[in-house]
């Protein structure tokens, strides 16, 4: 059967999901044009909202019969264009599967449907003494399913690891419509499919249910903001703290450019002349924290820290974290459009990549402000431009590309947590080479044989739908 239009199968979809489970009125579809990456847009032919795993599987099978591409969508906070239906077809939204099914402290496990918000789970666990460790800055909006699909991290990844370290099992619909249930009990007689579906960005399977690991809340925190005279000093201090064998819960950096916007938005009162601020959090048993803090402060001082100030109250700690986590939200105040990049280098190369970012900014005439999960070597340069100005768009994309190429040159990678989506697909071959991509492709062939699920994402392919404007496809500047 030849590829149908999703609009041809609306009656079947409605039969499966009810009228309220299908959107096809063009006016309703506008919001599904794009996600957190706003420069690449494409309208889906319809959006569906399954509420069970079985219904999700039925949708996938229907699409396979009619050769209709589909793209999964959680909250749509992807910064890699992972939710953009570049091949047209259906968007499968999981936002109506948002029940927390079970919390078992004795088993240190929660069972949630994929559309449960990260914050919703955090709230349900508040006061139990346990939490779900991955805490992306977008946690007020993003879904657990989205976290699983992108293997999301966050500030506290430094000590607690990324999403894959906290997933005990999943229920999922593979690209061929098969339902699999993996875990939560360890199964030696199996390949670790959970381990590969996590982070596969909706190109192997639609995850519908997740068994997550719960982590004990730390007894206490020491959260400090350290003011540095230069970004160079700050990144060198971070690298030294890691090398000294100290494992803080988080080590985040913000540079002067972003600090100004953040302070205007949230009124923390950062010194206006600070070149960089590190937010360092130590957590664990109360008894040992001050000792650790003394060591951290000494290292910072060796790198010319102007001051090391401890958050005095829980409220002050909360505000400090708000400033860091909502930093990106403040960027709108200083630029009409922006792209948040996501690169990663070995932690000792952090000072070097920060210097490169400054150089690239000047070379392309694109202002860049920085936040970073610095302890992991994960930089998030934010490129400021104006979407209405073609030349500005072009320069921003070229700068982003050069920056990621520098990450590769430093022995790093083109994404630490946001994923490839469609945004970085053009750089996959530079990073891995054709041969290794072929091997990756086998996994997709096995789980999602027609590659219809997540069409045109993650793995480059000559017959994939054209992507117009991303760092991977843009022309380099001379």
């Amino acid at each position, binding site marked *: 059967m030849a590829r149908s239009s999703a609009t041809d199968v609306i009656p079947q979809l409605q039969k499966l999901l009810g009228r309220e489970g299908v959107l096809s009125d063009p006016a309703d579809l506008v919001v599904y044009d794009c996600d957190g990456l706003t420069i690449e847009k494409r309208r889906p032919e319809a959006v569906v909202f399954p509420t069970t795993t079985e219904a999700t599987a039925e949708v996938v099978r229907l699409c396979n019969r009619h050769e209709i591409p589909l793209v999964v969508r959680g909250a749509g906070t992807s910064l890699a264009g992972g939710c953009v239906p570049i091949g047209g077809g259906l968007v499968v939204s999981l936002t109506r599967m948002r029940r927390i099914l079970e919390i078992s402290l*004795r*088993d240190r*496990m929660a069972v949630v449907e994929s559309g449960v918000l990260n914050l919703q789970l955090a709230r349900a666990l508040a006061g139990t003494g346990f939490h779900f460790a991955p805490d992306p800055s977008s946690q007020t909006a993003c879904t657990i399913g989205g976290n699983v699909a*992108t293997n999301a991290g966050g500030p506290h990844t430094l000590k607690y690891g*990324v999403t*894959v*370290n906290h997933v005990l099992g999943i229920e999922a619909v593979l690209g061929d419509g*098969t339902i*699999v*249930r993996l875990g939560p*009990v*360890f*199964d*030696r*007689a*199996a*390949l*670790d*499919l959970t*381990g*590969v579906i*996590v*982070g596969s960005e909706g190109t192997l399977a639609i995850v519908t249910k997740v068994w997550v690991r719960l982590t*004990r809340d730390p007894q206490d925190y020491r959260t400090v903001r350290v003011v540095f005279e230069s970004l160079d000093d700050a990144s060198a201090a971070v690298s030294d703290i*890691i*090398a000294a*064998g100290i*494992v803080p819960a988080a080590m985040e950096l913000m540079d002067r450019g972003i600090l100004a916007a953040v302070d205007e938005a949230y009124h923390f009162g950062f010194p206006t002349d600070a070149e960089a601020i590190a937010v360092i959090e130590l957590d*664990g*048993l109360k*008894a*040992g924290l001050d*000792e*650790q803090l003394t060591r951290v402060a000494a290292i910072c001082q060796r790198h010319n820290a102007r001051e090391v100030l401890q958050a005095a109250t829980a409220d002050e700690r909360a505000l400090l974290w708000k400033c860091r986590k909502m930093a990106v939200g403040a960027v709108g105040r200083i630029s009409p459009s922006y792209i948040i990049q*996501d690169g*990663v*280098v*070995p*932690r000792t190369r952090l000072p070097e990549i920060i210097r490169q970012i400054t150089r690239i900014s000047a070379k392309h005439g694109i202002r860049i402000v920085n936040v970073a*999960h610095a302890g*992991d*070597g994960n930089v998030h340069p934010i490129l400021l431009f104006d979407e209405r100005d073609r030349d500005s768009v072009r320069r921003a994309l070229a700068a982003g590309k050069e920056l990621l190429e520098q990450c590769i040159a430093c*022995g790093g*990678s083109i*994404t*630490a947590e946001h*994923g*490839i989506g469609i945004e970085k697909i053009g750089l996959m071959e530079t*990073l*891995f080479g054709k*041969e290794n991509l072929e*091997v*990756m492709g*086998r*996994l997709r*062939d*096995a*789980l999602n044989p027609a590659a219809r699920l997540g069409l045109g994402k*993650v*793995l480059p392919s000559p017959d994939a739908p054209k992507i117009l404007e991303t760092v991977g496809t843009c022309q380099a500047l001379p």
Partner: protein
Amino acid sequence: MSNGFLPTTETVHAESAEMVAETVRRAGSQRSAVYPIGGATALAFGAATETPGLGLSLARLNGLADYPARDLTVTVGAGMTLGEFGRLLRKENQRLPVDVPQAAAATIGGAVATNFSGPRRFRFGTIRDYLLGLTAVDGSGKIFSAGGRVVKNAAGYDLARLLVGSLGSLAVVTEVTLMVKPVPEASALLGVALAELRKADSLLASLVESEVEPVAIELAAGALPRQSPLRLGDGTAAGQLWLGFEGSETDVRWLVDKAAACCRQLGAEPRLIDGAAEAGELWQTLADFPAPDGQPTLTVEAAVLPSQTVAAAESLLKLDGGAAILCHAGDGIIVARFACPPDRAAALASDAREAIRLTGGKAAVLSAPAESRLDRSAVWGPATEALGVMERVKRKFDPQGILNPGRFIFATGTP
């Protein structure tokens, strides 16, 4: 016959990834099986196979490729032993906190292939949580690499994770990049003898409520060897619970005090082991529990929800009161050793699997006497619904089915 477990006709000692690739290609053209061998400590693990083939030893691929210690990452050949690896890291006051039995002989490639872990799993997870990237050779002799050398990486599919626990049935691992951790300042273990196993449940439940977070929660039960350092009390105890703690001196002191108070509240007097030598020996005993002791033994590993650990251990003891059992109770992992003549292994394995199924878990055979020749279903249990898709993955990586044929869950692979 190299060791009684594998029908190898000869063994090639690979000196490079290229040589591994060449060997696999040559075997492929002759449709001969290939059995990767690391330290040969876990060759009893896996179903018996009659298919003759080449042994492919990785032991000489044991070099250090890169150790940027300040990044806390390291890249080594798959044939490096865990003992050697540990010494290397120790110089930088770092370690890989995954416990593997017989570390002196077992290799890193073997640890990836078998996905074995021990007591510290509760706090530190398994090898998958440290594996950043690797190089391997698939069943057609193609060298590929996956992942990278940075601690956080979301680019593409994580094929390194796919190979963890695949028992060398998808690819031969030649080089591995791992994330490592600083060595903690202090370590201690606290043990309590339990008059009945059920007592462990109330103790573990009270730990959840308290602020005590051990790195290991070990429950030993059944017939432990008389001289085992795991034994406590006058020898009449039904079990002993060992809590392991690591961290700064201050942290460990606080944790031990608090945990001891918890135990006393429940009427159990704890024994503290905090001398470096004595604690070291105890950690070693816990980690080496599955290792062979020269007796014909059936070793079964079960996995249940953590809250079902005691019930599962009891149900295994009901099968054979003479079994020796060690549970990683925080993770619901139970290792049971049954003294067992070869001809009884299959029946006992099947009884154990059924007992575990009733507590909601899964069981696999870790090792059995060589002469028992357990087949796939005896070792791995009945096929699950996901086997079909796993078979598809297997065919993509090893189209001729020459890598460890018949040893893992796959039906494919009798050349």
